[in-house]
């Protein structure tokens, strides 16, 4: 058999023997359920992250406000003297 015939023979073998396999239906539906639950958890986690972000930005805003007021008080006291 020459090289070209060899290649054709292998191609025919591959074509006739390799076919898609199908997973168990139970596996497909169980995985779908798991993904649905995971999606729900992901959405809840997203809300939780927004909450943490809000608290964190509130804290930063509070610190900045405190520093500004503190600076203003110091400035007024300094100018009174």
């Amino acid at each position, binding site marked *: 058999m020459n*090289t070209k015939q*060899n*290649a054709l023979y*292998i*191609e025919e*073998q*591959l*074509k006739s*023997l*390799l*076919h*898609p*396999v*199908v*997973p168990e239906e139970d*596996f*497909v539906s169980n*995985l*779908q359920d*798991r*993904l*649905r639950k*995971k*999606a*729900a958890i*992901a*959405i809840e986690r997203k809300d939780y992250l927004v909450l943490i972000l809000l608290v964190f930005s509130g804290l930063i805003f509070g610190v900045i406000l405190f520093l500004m007021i503190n600076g203003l008080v110091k400035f007024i006291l300094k100018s009174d003297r």
Partner: protein
Amino acid sequence: MSPEDKNFVDNNDVLDRAISGDEAAFSILYQENVKKIYSYIYYRTGNVKDAEDLTARVFQRALNHITRYKKTKVPFSAWLYRIAHNLVANWHRDSKHKFELPLEDHTYIQSKSVIPEKQIEKSQQIEYLMRIIRKLPQDRQQLLILKYVDSMSNREVGIIMKKSEGAIKSLYHRTLKELRNIIDEDELL
């Protein structure tokens, strides 16, 4: 997208909804792709347990990153195949897994009408062929499985493997040659 990319036809409306976080839309994409991805992973790992585990991980990863998926870069199915390929590559790297390919565990789409004796013979032929294919480098195994199991064109394989159509064609011919050499060596033993 070329008309010959029959494996990569995206339902844009469903995809858009999934990208915006619609769980039902992601479910549709899951239904459309789960069998293809499972089949690909099964041939790459050779056993049902790992194929199921890795298929689950592909879709979990896709779900986690779907909102960051860019439609313009690569078709959705190809994106899933790339995730699958990365997970399979890690699986091969992490430990030396035994390749089993227990054929009796599966319903082969095109072999339902085959009589038992013929089925056994065919199973043995597939086992032999897969044993030979497993001796090839990873990229060549991937190419053969995408081309023959998933019936993809060179262009489609190229999209998944991030190579040009010409490069895939050339790799394919080298793969056939190498496969022939392995079979010859095997027959000499």
